[in-house]
């Protein structure tokens, strides 16, 4: 069953089991209403999240990816989120050079007790993805643009976004 | 003592306006009283500052804006400096004065008149004309005895100029006031 066309966009979350997944649970227990777009993949630690998972998700057509782990210093595994922070920040800056809007990916820290923070993160991020709209698909680049690429005529116009 | 009906008498818009204009979150206040404890003006207040904060939290607009306290705060910043929750209480007091002015309230009229006289002087000359300000204040309040005793002490010192220090760009300053008035009325 696809996302509800016109209503939802495809947003994938990678959450560490100990903090953020628990935070999302806490939000649920508190009945903190959230948009329904997000689908959560549970991983043990934000350090388990290979940036390639995110790149693959976005290249394969997701409209947004949200990663959340324990707050720095609160990692269940002591250090995993510190490595994650570096890798995810590098990825965030890398995405635009591939032609992916950096606003489609964000990472943050939510503890197991921060249900309200989780509600806010999900709401804000979902709104952000909806503002960006459905992601342009790599396999659906227009013939016109491809022709320009072949002619080496890209990058002549305005609308530049710094990488 | 009146009973406050917490549901009916709560003015949420007022709370929201205070928070927006002051940039402070008033629900951070947990009523420890440190502001009142340190405030040098508590003895002169009709409502201590911690209770002003409480009444703002409770949305009691009329009580707060008609209080004398908000006109007696000298912005000495002791409340702001010592608040354990880092609320800029002095700024909240400032904002309450702004709101009271807009509502046409001034529970200590002579303070408002003094400040207005001061600003009139700045608007007219670009700088404050101290003697002119005092005379203007006395004329407006009718308090002719104000500081009469100080005259003999200060005039011989040659410090109080009898005419204002007009600056060349006084129209610039006047225009600040004019634009301000235009912006506030628009």
């Amino acid at each position, binding site marked *: *069953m*696809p996302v509800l066309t016109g*209503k*939802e966009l*495809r947003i*994938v979350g990678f959450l560490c*089991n100990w903090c953020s*997944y628990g935070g999302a*649970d806490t*939000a*649920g*227990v508190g009945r*903190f*209403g*959230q948009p*329904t777009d997000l*689908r*959560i*993949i*549970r991983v*043990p630690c934000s*350090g*388990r*999240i290979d*940036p390639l*998972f995110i790149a*693959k*998700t976005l290249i*394969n057509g*997701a409209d947004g990816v949200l990663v959340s782990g324990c707050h720095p*210093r*609160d*990692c*269940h*595994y*002591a*250090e*995993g989120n510190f*490595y994650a922070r570096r890798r995810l920040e590098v990825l965030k800056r890398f995405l635009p050079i591939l032609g992916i809007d950096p606003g489609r990916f964000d990472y943050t820290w939510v503890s197991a*007790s921060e249900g309200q923070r989780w509600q806010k993160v999900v709401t804000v991020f979902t709104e952000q993805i909806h503002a960006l709209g459905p992601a342009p698909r790599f396999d659906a680049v227009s013939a016109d643009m491809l022709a320009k690429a072949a002619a080496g005529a890209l990058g002549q116009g305005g609308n530049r976004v710094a990488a | 003592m009146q009973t406050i009906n917490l549901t009916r008498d709560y003015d949420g818009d007022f709370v929201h306006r205070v928070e927006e204009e002051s940039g402070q979150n008033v629900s951070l206040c*947990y009523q*420890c*009283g*440190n*502001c*009142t*404890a*340190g*405030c040098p003006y508590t*003895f002169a207040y009709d*409502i*201590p500052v*911690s*209770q002003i904060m409480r009444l703002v939290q409770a949305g009691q607009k009329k009580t707060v804006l008609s209080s004398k306290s908000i006109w007696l705060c000298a912005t000495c910043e*002791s409340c702001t400096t*010592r*608040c*354990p*929750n*880092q609320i800029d209480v002095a700024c909240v007091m400032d904002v309450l004065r702004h709101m009271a002015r807009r509502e046409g309230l001034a529970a200590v009229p002579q303070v408002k008149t003094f400040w207005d006289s001061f600003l009139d002087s700045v608007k007219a000359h670009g700088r404050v004309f101290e003697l002119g300000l005092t005379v203007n204040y006395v004329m407006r309040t009718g308090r002719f005895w104000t500081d009469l005793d100080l005259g003999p002490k200060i005039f011989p010192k040659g410090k109080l100029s009898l005419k204002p220090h007009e600056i060349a760009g006084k129209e610039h300053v006047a225009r600040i006031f004019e634009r301000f008035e235009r912006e506030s009325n628009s």
Partner: protein
Amino acid sequence: MRIGVFICHCGSNIEGTVDTATVAKASLDFPEVVYATDTMYACSEPGQDGIIQAIKDKNLTGVVVASCTPRMHEPTFRRAVERAGLNRYMFEMANIREHVSWIGKDREANTNKSVDLVRIAIEKLRRDAPLSPSKFSINKRVMVIGGGVAGIQAALDCADGGLQVVLVERESSIGGKMAKLDKTFPTVDCSSCILGPKMVDVAQHENITLHAYSEVDAIGGYVGNFQVQVKKKATYVDWTLCTGCGACMEKCPSKKNPDRFNEKIGPCTSINIPFPQAIPKKAVIDPTTCRQFVKGKCGVCAKVCPTGAIKYDMADEIVTEDVGAIVAATGYDLFDISKVTEYGGGRYPDVITGLQYERLLSASGPTGGHIKRPSDGKEPKNVVFIQCVGSRDKSLDRPYCSGFCCMYTAKQAILTKDHIPDSQSYVFYMDIRSPGKMYDEFTRRAMEEYGARYIRGRVAMVYPKDGKMIVRGADTLAGTQVEVEADLVVLAAGAEAAVGAPKLAEKLRISYDKYGFFMESHPKLKPVETNTAGVYLAGSCQGPKDIPQSVGQGSAAAAKVLALFSKDMLESDPQISRVDIKRCVGCGKCIITCPFKAIKEVEFRGQKKAEVIETVCQGCGLCTSTCPQGAIQLSHFTDNQILAEVNALCQS
């Protein structure tokens, strides 16, 4: 694979906003699913029986339950599928309650989202492999770090349980903060009278080895087999010879040093035994003040020592202790009151901490138990107590409640009246926190029987005038500003993490919060466990605690250690990383990054390879995302499993 899918109604919790029958029906279209149904309460006994029956009837080899969060019932369902003969890891959950039904009202969207979540659970399950734990032996010795009351209790309980205990204490005597207290609330019994015997028990227990004046230097190994290097700091006194007779202290010419045991309100000698009941009762030289060290000549103590125990050339020594479990009980330290400049702590001698006041109250303290104020030695009549100094204060980055100050302040107000009958105590408080047994009654007694005057409000400033300390505060209940002309001001300084706690946490590989308190494994259900197997917590190192709570935790930690050691072999969690030795190129990136040092380099047919130490690996998977060739895979969260989930979401 033959997969069965069970969609739980959770009464109306899920069914209210998710059409579970539709989800079950949709599940049948997914690969390898042979059975799908909705069920009223999957976790109930009939619910579990239904799953077990279906496994048997339909020959299922894997199960997906869509219900609440796996953080709640994953263990329950794993046991259920195990009862039906499946490996417990051939099971996955889809969280359609906390993550779906409880956070959205749109039934269509929720149903649709539930199908997606079931689908990714199925895709992950299809790549699950049966896992089984392995066993390893354990060293049944335990180390307790910290000899305060929590550590003492943990050590004694473990030792009484027949375990060999190594107790490491930073100071020259055990006893911790409790040894400095005069009386204890709410019973007002003498602190050293109840702690003293326990300290003696530690000294005399045949199962306890005590390393006083020592610190943990390094920790290696894992649950069951830790190696701890303990630094025994140089005392410059041979403790095997020292009898604690105190002759050296009598003759030491350097007498005016701030006494740390007396919280620096009294002097002590450079060679010192901190207090008469010290365990061990041995002398230590402070080389920063000792004339022999500072000026190079003196030697008085060496001359007078009847056993020749003084050794000026002593050096630090490292000893290694092998233990199977560690209890951290390193306690707390006090908030530095000089940070609250408006109270003048550190500037005005008559503004002191509650712990300093304990020393003034104590018969073994510098004033012999007579309350004399530090500035002029006079007996104070008006004593002001200010609570929450460095507690519940965001501006000082101490937003938390220190928990026990309300009670000890009430106790000190009572003791003040006992010591000086014509005195008057004033207590400035914000809220009285007294939820223990007989606690609130105790604070009421302070007011009702002892006449302590409680004023609800903070104090803005304290300043000296004409020999008095003027305390200006607020009485928020009366809505006024108030002033007290005090003779002595006692600040209830908040508790904060012990100096060096984060460093120790890093050695123990446990987490700590932003204030430096150690993190327990679960705030409610695992209060003395940590996320590192075999490391437990007791007392205030985890957060501020009073004596009964600390003692309770000491015993709790001991119970955990005894339970751990009740088996001869330990089972390791099989959700750990495994190396595909063919793919590994031996670059060691996983070894560098592993937070637990759980990966080592080995030689395999002349080539370097990585190898996971099963018992040390905690299953975070950092190595898996670090290894470029995918040679090290975290079981149950492999690349292929997560990729399958990603693909399922992107394709649909």
